[in-house]
């Protein structure tokens, strides 16, 4: 099977999974109220996040389509819905200002004068198109890594906190060791070992990123397992596994949700740093910013490329952080009572 088919299937499964989780959560009044609370507190930020998710999803579904005579053979590759929103021969030859009619250097006429809303980059690609495509990479980094981090952190954190003893010592040693290493160096080393590529970068970020949540979960489990309702459950004859799944995990979920949302924005930024070092993911905003390094020193400087990527990154991070704050306000028992 070809890569783009697999990718489409994965996206489909993900959407189905999210829908299932959302549907399950919706049936519980606690989560339904929490979701409504977030939407009430931060409607604009939530809308921005959903917009980015929408763009990313549109870019995630791709296919080759029926052959057309006017297409060059080199264009016979899968194109996403976002790609299809732009004409096939949309590229120019070099830089052009936003909405310019001529090239930035030399002043040759453009193929599509005044049509490139955010200008074009060094090889004439439309910056708006690139920026939109960057959303998919950003969400991939944030989303996939979060999906790696949460199970890791829960598995190690809950088991260490609940079982205690040697296993706890071991997990804590592991956490401390990972936390003691400079994470950037560790990231670079991991990517050097795993190789470059979107999944590899996410795995590397995941391995370095689960420590904080794991420590949090372990501490909370230590606290919860001594609580009266856990002891009461045990006194009623509830099995250990059932206690874990019915009484411990649900009471950890608010921590997980809060951390996951805040983790997400940190991860997207980490990817930008990696791109800056030249080991990020192709097509990310970080890479666009990285490319803009030289462009800034030109005279006159070329800023639209940098600005588009930075603003998109900024908007996503800001929106996610604000939604994260609202999630914390709603779910954290210490702040849940405050009107937001």
């Amino acid at each position: 099977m070809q890569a783009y088919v697999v990718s489409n299937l994965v996206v489909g499964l993900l959407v189905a999974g999210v829908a299932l989780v959302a549907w399950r959560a919706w049936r519980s009044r606690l989560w339904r109220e929490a979701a409504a609370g977030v939407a009430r507190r931060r409607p604009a930020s939530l809308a921005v996040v959903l917009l980015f998710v929408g763009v990313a999803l549109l870019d995630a579904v791709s296919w080759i389509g029926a052959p057309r005579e006017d297409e060059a053979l080199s264009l016979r590759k899968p194109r996403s819905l976002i790609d299809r929103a732009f004409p096939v021969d949309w590229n120019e030859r070099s830089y052009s200002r936003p909405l310019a009619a001529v090239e930035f250097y030399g002043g040759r006429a453009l193929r599509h004068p005044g049509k490139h809303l955010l200008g074009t980059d060094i090889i004439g690609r439309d910056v708006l198109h690139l920026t939109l495509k960057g959303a998919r990479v950003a969400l991939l980094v944030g989303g996939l890594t979060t999906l790696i981090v949460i199970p890791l952190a829960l598995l190690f954190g809950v088991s260490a906190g609940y079982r205690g003893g040697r296993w706890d010592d071991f997990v804590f040693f592991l956490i401390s060791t990972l936390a003691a290493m400079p994470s950037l160096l560790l990231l670079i080393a991991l990517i050097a070992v795993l190789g470059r590529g979107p999944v590899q970068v996410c795995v590397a970020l995941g391995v370095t990123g689960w420590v904080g949540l794991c420590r949090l979960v372990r501490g909370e489990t230590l606290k919860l397992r001594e609580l009266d309702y856990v002891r009461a459950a045990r006194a009623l004859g509830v099995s250990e596994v059932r206690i874990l799944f019915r009484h411990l995990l649900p009471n950890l979920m608010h921590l997980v949700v809060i951390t996951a949302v805040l983790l997400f924005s940190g991860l997207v930024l980490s990817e930008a740093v990696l791109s800056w070092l030249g080991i990020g993911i192709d097509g990310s905003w970080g890479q666009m910013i990285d490319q803009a390094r030289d462009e800034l020193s030109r005279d006159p400087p070329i800023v639209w490329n940098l600005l588009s990527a930075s603003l998109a990154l900024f908007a996503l991070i800001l929106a996610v952080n604000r939604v994260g704050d609202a999630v914390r306000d709603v779910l954290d028992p210490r702040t849940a009572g405050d009107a937001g």
Partner: protein
Amino acid sequence: MSERVLTVEGLSTRFPGSDGPVAVVEDVSFEIDRGEVLALVGESGCGKSMTAFSLLRLVPRPGRIAARRIEICGRDVLSLPVPEMRQVRGREAAMIFQEPMTSLNPVQTAGAQVVEAIRLHERIDTGAARRRTVELFDRVGIPDPDARFDAYPHQLSGGMKQRVMIAMALSSHPKLLIVDEPTTALDVTIQAQILDLLRELQRESGTSILLITHDLGIVNELADRVSVMYAARLVEEGRRETILGAARHPYTQGLLRSIPGLARRGEPLAEIPGVVPAPEEWPPGCHFAGRCERALECCATTRPDETRLADEHVVSCHVVAREASR
């Protein structure tokens, strides 16, 4: 002779300390018959709750229990494999905790938790379990039980939560109810209601109760027999009237004297001098020797034997033993 629900012989629960294991429960024996209420009385930290946890093998790690015999409804608790032990917990003997505020899982509705308790020990579908739960809620005096089924714990008051806990404990018709300080966390009017409820339920269903408390008022309300515990050991046992009216052990007498009462209005309240010493500082003899105003020389060095004063009245005290033999 009536049916025996609980037999405990020579129970000791030890925790590792810096100088070897420390016994927080030491050589404790008692038994409860069907329909009987035994009160285990003592001040905070004397090992009452640990005794209760030991009975269900729920002592937190690294504590260890040892006993000659613990039997709940004829089943040997000490040798039961874990899955069968889980069947004893909840079905034969259920426990009610002292903190209703934290005894319910905050992310599940009250009803769902009782349903879980029912379905642990019985194969019935959720609809039937729900009906049973609503009935139970009604029986423990929860108003509007159908609506309360879907309430989360934070929407219930302390008294309501304790009622839910009682409903949960009763859900599988246990023969023995272990009630650990059932009213300490509640205010006085709710205390009275909960005590009335416990007494009524006990009378209706004939459940035996092991009542753990430091409140002699509650003992007077509910108990048939009383065991007084001091610093890990039982010091005096007897029928309620005997203990409350004719206690012989200096500790029990001190406890009774320190109850505020109308008779001695205006006088300073009697107290037992000193505080309970830490387990490492217990004398090898009688644990109470250091605080006892009638202590003899042998008290601190030799452990007193049990002296049977009447059919059901047993005291462990050198002073009492000497007086009795005279």
